[in-house]
């Protein structure tokens, strides 16, 4: 789902960077706020970025397409560290991927931050919070957060690609075609990402519920129950 280096013309690359910048800046502000009172918070976010990087590099078989794809991991970080710091985590993981693996790129860094870090994180986080407010089960809420985060990311990537590469073609028709082209891989991958997010939250709840409380994912009384 990464938009490769050089696909977007300068104008679009600059626009998406301008959109991404305030989110990363706000993420840094929140990081500074939270790490002022807790020295372990910065290493924790760094380690989370490393974990998200590895999760996003894990090849997952996509049966319908007969290929491998990879999860984005933004729902996980969105739930654990909140959507704002998750955008920062995604920015870090995307920069390492761009510099050393040619997944994404420097010129398309802003666009990739917006689709994965911002849209993915916020969609995942808001789905999780919304469903929890409706008293839905913890793992089911995490599953839905993973699914929605993945599909929202892929819709945003389609918007970015269609607007950036359309040339003289009409936007809506190209957007529809790109969206359809993504369906065979992204629909099952969304469900895989949901299962992965649910498995991760479920395991954390079983093994270390105190961490979920520390990360403000659950309230202390929810763990006590």
């Amino acid at each position, binding site marked *: 789902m990464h938009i*490769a280096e*050089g696909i977007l013309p300068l104008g679009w690359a600059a626009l998406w960077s301008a959109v991404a910048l305030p989110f990363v800046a706000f993420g840094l502000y929140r990081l500074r706020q939270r790490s002022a009172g807790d020295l372990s918070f*910065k290493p924790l976010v760094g380690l989370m970025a*490393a974990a998200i990087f*590895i999760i996003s590099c894990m090849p997952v078989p996509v049966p319908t397409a007969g290929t491998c794809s990879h999860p984005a991991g933004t729902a996980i970080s969105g739930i654990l560290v909140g959507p704002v710091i998750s955008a*920062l985590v995604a920015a870090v993981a995307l920069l390492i991927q761009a510099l050393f693996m040619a997944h994404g790129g420097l*010129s398309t860094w802003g666009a990739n931050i917006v689709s994965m870090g911002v849209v993915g994180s916020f969609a995942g986080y808001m789905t999780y919070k919304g469903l929890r407010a409706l008293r839905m089960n913890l793992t089911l809420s995490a599953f839905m957060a993973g699914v929605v985060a993945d599909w929202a990311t892929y819709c945003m990537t389609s918007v970015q690609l269609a607007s950036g590469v359309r040339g003289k073609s009409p936007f809506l028709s190209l957007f529809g075609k790109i969206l359809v082209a993504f369906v065979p891989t992204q629909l099952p991958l969304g469900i895989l990402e949901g*299962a992965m997010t649910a*498995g991760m939250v479920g395991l954390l709840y079983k093994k270390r519920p105190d961490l979920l409380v520390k990360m403000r994912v659950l309230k202390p009384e929810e763990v006590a129950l």
Partner: protein
Amino acid sequence: MELLSEHSQAQAQAQAGKHLLSIDARIKILASMLLLLMITSYRGFAFPLFVSVLSVLLCRKMKVSFRTFLLRFSEPLFIVSVLVLLKLFLSGRDVLFSFDLFGLSVTGHRDGLLEGLEMACRIVGAVSVVAVLGFSTPFAELMAGLSWLRVPRGFIEILMLAYRYIFVLFEEAMVIYQAQRNRLGYSSMRRGLASFGTLTGALVLKAFEQSQNTTVSMVQRGYDGAMPLLKHKPFKRSEAFASVLFIVVMGCLWSL
């Protein structure tokens, strides 16, 4: 991940060669950014292709293996081929060829193909520039260069911590993955999903534990919330002059 380890090996070889490595990281970053600006704003084939050839030659000079180079280009080249096909068949008006496929009329367009190829050249050119930057610059110097460019310190610190622990956590993930495979954790779709979820959870747990240990050892070494970065020496006049000359020449080629 294979790409990242290939990258580290290639960088080690480049270090042995000491070609581009000795040049100030700030100069390499600035030159790469300017080249990326030129490539993304260029309309045509010549300039990105010229930059690609130049980059391939530089990588060969740094003794980057052909395999590493191909691995680096595998994903962008896949994207390029999909984009060219999309542009050929789905956009444009000037018909290049047409045929029937299971009763459907498929038409390729000349202007769509040209647009697609132009985009392909841009992608190849831009990826080659970043490849040269990555192969020729050690991570610590790159971070110091970003710091000189006024990238916020908090961001660089997170980047350094993440890069340092990617390899540690990856080894951990591989141990868990192998153990799961040995116990038939991926023998069916359902079990595979459950195992992958457990692996992810275990990895996040490991990251939590590792971050606690890291904080303790960092505090013992005097960590007060800010990490030290490499300090740059003043710019060398010869390097600065050569890089300005290089950018001016590239700018002239770009404007042709």
